[in-house]
């Protein structure tokens, strides 16, 4: 059984239809990359998974349990939404660290408030996460004292602290200087090796190609292409995918080989 099953998701903002019926599934330990041009609905899809937006139609199931069903009729209570969104973690494009808290406090805040153990356990767990993203020497620094890449790594550790089933990344390197993207992508790659299930919305084609088990190419709110990186990048069926990938090669050079 798939860990995540998304069926027939629709979402409109006013009269603009952003998602027009999306279906996909994800197995435990798999990494799914979502590529596509701006405005194709990638971010909205992630926001629906994290309950930051409510889909108008469709269902979302995790581990066989339906956690969202737009046709269900009854509105989810705030508590149910909080419960459900904890299946997912989200790393934002703009980090959104809490500026008044140190690196360590950023990571321990939510587990502490959610009473996920004793203070010592939470701190110990946070320290091992900080270690994992390579920022042990920065644990008492404040976000304003860190580079963008370091901030994003803290944000990843913060999301991991709640041990989500599926960790989502919304263009995690788009706000970074090119020389800082590598350190963040390395951390994500490391997570794959330890078996994390992840969904990565990204513009880093080479990264998507090398790290993913599945790739979705989105265009105009639909899944235009869905398959293994081999299928999507080397043998795209749709003309839209080909034209998108060609444009990427034009702007970013021939590094995809």
């Amino acid at each position, binding site marked *: 059984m798939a860990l995540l099953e998304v069926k027939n998701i629709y979402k409109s903002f006013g009269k603009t239809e952003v998602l027009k019926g999306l279906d996909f599934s994800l197995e435990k330990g798999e990494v799914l990359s979502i590529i596509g041009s701006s405005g194709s609905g990638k971010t909205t899809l992630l926001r629906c998974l*994290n*309950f*930051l937006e409510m889909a108008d139609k469709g269902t979302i199931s995790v581990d066989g349990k339906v956690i969202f069903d737009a046709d269900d009729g009854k509105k989810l209570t*705030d508590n149910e939404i*909080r*419960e459900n*969104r*904890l299946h*997912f*973690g*989200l790393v*934002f494009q*703009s980090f*959104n*660290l*809490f*500026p*008044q808290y140190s690196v360590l406090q950023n990571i321990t*805040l*939510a587990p502490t*408030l*959610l009473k996920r153990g004793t203070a010592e356990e939470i701190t110990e767990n946070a320290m091992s996460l900080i270690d994992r993203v390579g920022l042990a020497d920065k644990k008492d620094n*404040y*976000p*304003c004292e860190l580079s963008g890449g370091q901030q994003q790594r803290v944000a990843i550790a*913060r*999301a991991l602290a*709640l041990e989500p089933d599926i960790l989502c990344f919304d263009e995690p390197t788009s706000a970074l200087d090119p020389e800082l993207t590598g350190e963040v992508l390395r951390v994500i790659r490391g997570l794959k090796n330890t078996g994390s299930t992840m969904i990565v919305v990204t513009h880093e084609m080479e990264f998507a190609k090398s790290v993913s088990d599945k790739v979705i190419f989105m265009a105009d709110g639909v899944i235009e292409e869905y398959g293994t990186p081999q299928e999507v990048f080397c043998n795209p069926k749709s003309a839209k995918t080909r034209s998108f990938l060609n444009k990427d090669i034009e702007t970013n050079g021939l590094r995809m080989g």
Partner: protein
Amino acid sequence: MSFWEVTLFLFDGFKISLLIFAVTLLCGAPLGLPIAFCSMSRFKPIKYVAKIFVWIVRGIPLMLQIFILYYTPSLLFGWKIVRDMDIYFQVYYGVENVGGIVMVLIAFTINYACYFSEIYRGGIESISKGQYEAGYVLGLTKSQIFRKIILKQVIKRIVPPMSNEIITLIKDTALANCIAVAEIILQAKILAAEQAIIWPLFFTGAFYLIFVGLLTIILGRVEKKLDYFRS
């Protein structure tokens, strides 16, 4: 009158100024918060009632608001009852012009609550949506997000405008003398009228200056304390 006697006499008035200052700050600052929340409410009627209220209170001179509050009870219940109450307090408790002091306190509290509410609103609305969303995806409740994440950032942002408003407040207390509440400038005017000495009127400036100096130091410390992070 000796310099010392004049100083004590003026200080009696300054105690009233400080009373107005303290009550306005202690009551007006918290009262501003619900007004700010109402004016940000997604429920339109509440929002517009709050906005109109703030518009009226900020749109009318504070002095006129003091007059309105001071004279309305007399107009409604007759001059005699109100005066009798004043005399009662004077005879039994030795406080003069109780009605005037109470009305000044109410007028100041409401007026400043409205100004504070707009500062709070500006501060709260200036926090990026991403801070709330980061809290949401970490499974926090709305109230946890506000108390643990948003509040301190808001406080950091509103300290400078609040400092301004607080410094204006101590000087605004002089308006109380329009209904004969014996704050410091009224005391100085009494000296001028009864003893024919003008210099105490100028001397009142020193009281304000010293107090504002102290406020500046305290508020500066608060600002410095929040300097450790940037948002």
